């Protein structure tokens, strides 16, 4: 039975007879498994190669089954097909059936590090953390190389301190767990701090742009999150008045509003004035907050309908709907500020079930 299809971590039912019982990991760095303690090579390289081969064959079979082109069958298509063929109602996404490349499934392991006579290959083997120390060694080599380069430039008289600097905004250093994953070794917190300090020292020198690719290997790009929100389109009335429509939800309450421009701050909810609909002050404050934050208090007329749940949840749903509708009237920088203020995040809290 082909092994590329893994059904569940708990049910090791899909194990073939000829292979030993194996532990199944998804992504070790996330589950914080002890990589180095797993010891060298539970799986041989041939085994991994065979898995890769089976995976590729299986991918082509799957593409044929789904009547798509096997050549251009990407991982997303694989995920989609598996979700279609094996629908699962399990809440935990990691427990559902998946099909991934063996590289992602089987953890990186260390190959056997000594030869037949017991002599270690690497010169730093007896430090215990050979990859980590060799990495430090490499970084220091590069520092020295840059210093030599600097001296050369000084000798020639071409030394300038305002050389091209590496852009570091929008990225962060790799986390300790990610470095551990790369090195296939455990490192301590102090080791990690030492490595980062060394990298910072490298960055502080002029001419560090020579080693740009090396450094960028250790930086991870951060996504710009505010670009994720889709802004509702600004529509126009027959009279030329701009308005936008948006929805919001909070804890079973659903709200939908129309925000009209050039109004005078009237708010009508379900046909009634907001003063009558929300006699409690706190709910009115919730309604007021998005407008106050953006500074457009007396400008809009709001017409809303809301149903479900209780009065606080309805107020929260309306607040989210108002913030979303305001996105189309507001500039980019304001959108980011609103996101940071928490106006655009849907509150994920729901009622928990009753337990005995």
């Amino acid at each position: 039975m082909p092994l590329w299809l893994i059904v569940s971590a708990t049910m090791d039912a899909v194990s073939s007879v000829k292979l030993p019982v194996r532990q199944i990991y998804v992504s070790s760095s996330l589950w914080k498994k002890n990589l180095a303690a797993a010891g060298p090579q539970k799986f041989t390289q041939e085994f991994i190669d065979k898995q890769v081969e089976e995976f590729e064959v299986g991918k082509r079979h799957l593409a044929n089954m789904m009547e798509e082109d096997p050549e251009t069958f990407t991982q997303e298509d694989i995920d989609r097909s598996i979700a279609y063929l094996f629908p699962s109602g399990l809440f935990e996404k990691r427990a559902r059936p998946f099909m991934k490349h063996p590289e992602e499934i089987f953890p990186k392991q260390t190959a056997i590090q000594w030869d037949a006579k017991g002599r270690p290959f690497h010169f730093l083997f007896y430090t215990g953390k050979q990859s980590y120390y060799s990495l430090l060694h490499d970084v220091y080599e590069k520092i020295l190389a840059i210093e030599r380069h600097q001296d050369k430039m000084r000798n020639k008289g071409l030394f300038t301190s305002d050389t091209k600097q590496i852009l570091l905004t929008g990225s962060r250093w790799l986390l300790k767990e990610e470095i551990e994953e790369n090195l296939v070794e455990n490192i301590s917190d102090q080791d990690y701090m030492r490595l980062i300090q060394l990298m910072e020292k490298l960055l502080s020198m002029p001419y560090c742009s020579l080693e740009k690719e090396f450094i960028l290997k250790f930086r991870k790009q951060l996504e710009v999150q505010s670009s994720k929100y889709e802004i509702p389109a600004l529509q126009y009335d027959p009279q030329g008045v701009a308005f936008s429509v948006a929805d919001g939800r909070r804890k079973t309450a659903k709200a939908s509003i129309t925000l009209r421009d050039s109004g005078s701050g009237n708010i009508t909810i379900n046909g009634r004035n907001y003063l009558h609909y929300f006699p409690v002050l706190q709910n009115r404050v919730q309604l007021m907050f998005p407008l106050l934050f953006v500074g457009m208090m007396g400008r809009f007329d709001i017409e809303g309908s809301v149903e479900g749940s209780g009065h606080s949840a309805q107020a929260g749903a309306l607040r989210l709907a108002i913030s979303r509708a305001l996105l189309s009237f507001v500039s980019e920088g304001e959108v980011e500020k609103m996101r940071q203020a928490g106006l655009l995040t849907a509150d994920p809290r729901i009622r928990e079930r009753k337990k005995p």
Partner: protein
Amino acid sequence: MNLHKLSSRLCPTVSKFRHLHIQSSGQQLEAVAVETESTEPNPLSVFRTSEQNPTYHSERHTGQYYTLPPAHIQKLFPHGLPPRFQLQIKTFNEGCVMVRPPVLELISYLKKADYSKPPLRYILYGDIGTGKSMSLSHALHYCYTQGWLIVHIPDAHLWVKNCKELLPSSSRPSRFDQPIQASQWLKNFKITNEGFLSKIKTTQQYVWTKRESTEKGQPLGVLVDQGVNRMKSSSDVVGAVLRELRLQAGGTTEGEGAFKLAVAVDGVNALWGKTSLKKEDRTMVCWCKPEELTLIHNLRKMMKNNWSGGAILTALSQTGSLFKPQSAYLPSELLGEEGFDNMEPFVPVSVSNYNEKEFESCYLYYLERNWLQHPHSRSEEGKKELIFLSNKNPSILERLCAFL
């Protein structure tokens, strides 16, 4: 002007202010209250008027506060003002009422009415917290300054609920008396209309018990004292007093002078609604109907326009009403069919939330009284927040500012 310099020295935090021309007292400034964050060079004249007599209030004074003289407050409103306003008077050491269009309308009707004809019935109606009771009090102040006789029931709902003692009536078997409420009201009536008590004489003899009776021709004061002293018959005394006043209001009798009668009832929808008082029959406990209460019965007789020489000013009230939904505010909803038929024809006067100018006035008044302590409330954004949160509703604004 000296006052200008004085106030600008006293208010160093003024960032910008408009120079306003001050004319003679009582005349309002035009185009006021567009500049918001200014404590004016003469704060007194923007939102206050020195015109203390409601007779002379006119459209020029809308949005401005006038002060109720303390002597008048004590005499005219021993029980009459809304409780929150009484607290405000105590806090601010003065009672200031805002002049608003519905009251001006009402006062103009009162000025033009013909008092030889049956009285006109005015009903003040509006949403909760828009100022109906305050408007009624303002109109009543006008009547008082004109020298009318005031019959003021501050809240008719108090007579149909939460009554501890309910006695079967002494005069009629199917009715119930409320001695405490009746005697309380008679005491307040005495304070308000002291001047008239000696002038009006009774027209017939009233027999209370075997031993007590009031003869014909006695001054009204005796009748009132009878009710105050003898709690048992106080409800009937109330009925008698009202009857006397009804008969003599037009000044057709040979009494010492004609007087005009102002009947002011707040919460008039209580007269035709339900009560929350239980009567214990022999078989079971059931609710009293309003007709079965002596006080209500007599009041209903006053509401009819079969007398002349006065006016009936009423205000609806949902907050004290029993078994009425909170969204009801129109006369037809709150009075019910029976009430509506009884009160028809009437002059409805609608009271609504503050408009911008009135809100401005109220805001400046609170600022001047140092009621808004929070520094943010003095700024422009703070004001916008207040407008939003209260939607310019007077009572909500007042409650909001109370904890700022």
